[in-house]
């Protein structure tokens, strides 16, 4: 357990430096959100109608930033070889790496997500719900993204490959995440879509580490 805590701490500190870390992801998120009013026109009513959806779609794109380096650096510098020689095994290593990635970039993104949506015109009352949904979706983004990052090991232009592999799997997270907020806005219960979001996220947390471990083993051999 101690070794896993040490791995988590190491991964977390590396994630802050990896590909620009949380600042770059947050900057990208804010930047793409600013594009929305420029592209859509500045009519507040029109913007408010798409605010939540746009906030979630851009959140998914921002989560892709820095995923490319999740396994690649360890693969290139030999750390992945040595990580396989520890008692916990590669699936647990992968899960810890994704969890650290979530804490390092998913959490900062979830913190600014309500501000992005509100600045686009969403009512301030939905802010907390957007934060919770973004945090849950972010966990799913990290774990699904990890599969893409592991599959792209050893390829050139891995970042593009990751996006192509991963974006279709992001769809349920966006549908349920934005759906929960829209249900709440429409006077319905936000609970059921939020529960579906949590279920999908937990499912990815349980299953994807094995896929990541298999992809890493394949790249190492």
């Amino acid at each position, binding site marked *: 357990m*101690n*070794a896993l805590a*040490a*791995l988590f701490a*190491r991964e977390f*500190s*590396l994630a802050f*430096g990896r590909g620009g870390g949380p600042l770059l992801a947050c900057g990208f998120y804010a930047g793409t959100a600013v594009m929305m009013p420029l592209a859509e026109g500045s009519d507040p009513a029109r913007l408010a109608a798409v605010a939540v959806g746009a906030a979630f779609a851009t959140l998914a794109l921002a989560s892709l930033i820095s995923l490319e380096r999740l396994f690649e*650096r*360890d693969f*290139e*510098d*030999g*750390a*992945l*070889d*040595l*990580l*396989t*020689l*520890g*008692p916990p*095994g590669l699936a647990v290593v992968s899960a810890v790496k994704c969890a650290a990635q979530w804490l390092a970039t998913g959490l900062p993104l979830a913190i600014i997500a309500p501000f992005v949506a509100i600045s686009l015109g969403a009512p301030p009352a939905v802010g907390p719900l957007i934060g919770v949904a973004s945090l849950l979706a972010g966990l799913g983004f990290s774990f699904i993204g990890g599969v893409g990052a592991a599959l792209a090991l050893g390829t050139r232009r891995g970042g593009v490959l990751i996006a192509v592999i991963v974006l279709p799997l992001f769809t349920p997270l966006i549908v349920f995440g934005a759906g929960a907020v829209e249900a709440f806005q429409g006077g319905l219960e936000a609970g059921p879509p939020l529960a579906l979001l949590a279920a999908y996220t937990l499912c990815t947390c349980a299953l994807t580490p094995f896929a990541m471990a298999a992809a890493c083993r394949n790249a*190492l*051999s």
Partner: protein
Amino acid sequence: MTENAMRLTGVKLDAVTLSRGARRLVADVHLTLSAGELMSVTGANGVGKTSLIRAIAGLLAPDSGAICFFGGAGALDPEAVRAEQVHLLAHQDGLKSTRTVRDELAFWTQWLGGRKGVDGAIDALSLSALLDLDVRKLSAGQRRRLALARLVAAPRRLWLLDEPMAPLDTPTRQRFAAVMDRHLKDGGIIIAAVHDPLPLAGRTLQLERAP
């Protein structure tokens, strides 16, 4: 099984054949090593020394043949042996350039199951003056000393070394030879891919290009 029965006391390679892609590297390697033995693996560049070492570490699956580990009570589970009793030292050392020597040594020692060995390892490879430096500031030899310190800090029975001495200066070579000697006397096993012969008594496996 008791811990003693789980201790690795032998390694056996039985007709191991390896290839990388379509290229056959080594064919039909037989090898038996028991506690306290050193095997130097030699051969031309690209003949498959590194691949053989990676295969024993479980990172590369052999095309055919078997790699077996033995303890006091017979054959051991290879997964468990690799997770607890195998050290790998390769060209890519897994050290992160932005972290300090102290952090990296502490992390890898913990990961590889060492508890109190860090201080001894710092002494054995004279790292005490380097502890607060970032890994990127180390010379090739200093960096290798840090990688070797992991072997001392976390006690594991089988050392798989790929060119361990290459970037080291003469005094450090002597120091590390003493470290290897102590490991063998404690009943450890070393398999080392080398070009220059090691300053220790041991057997040699000469790899030939596969037909």
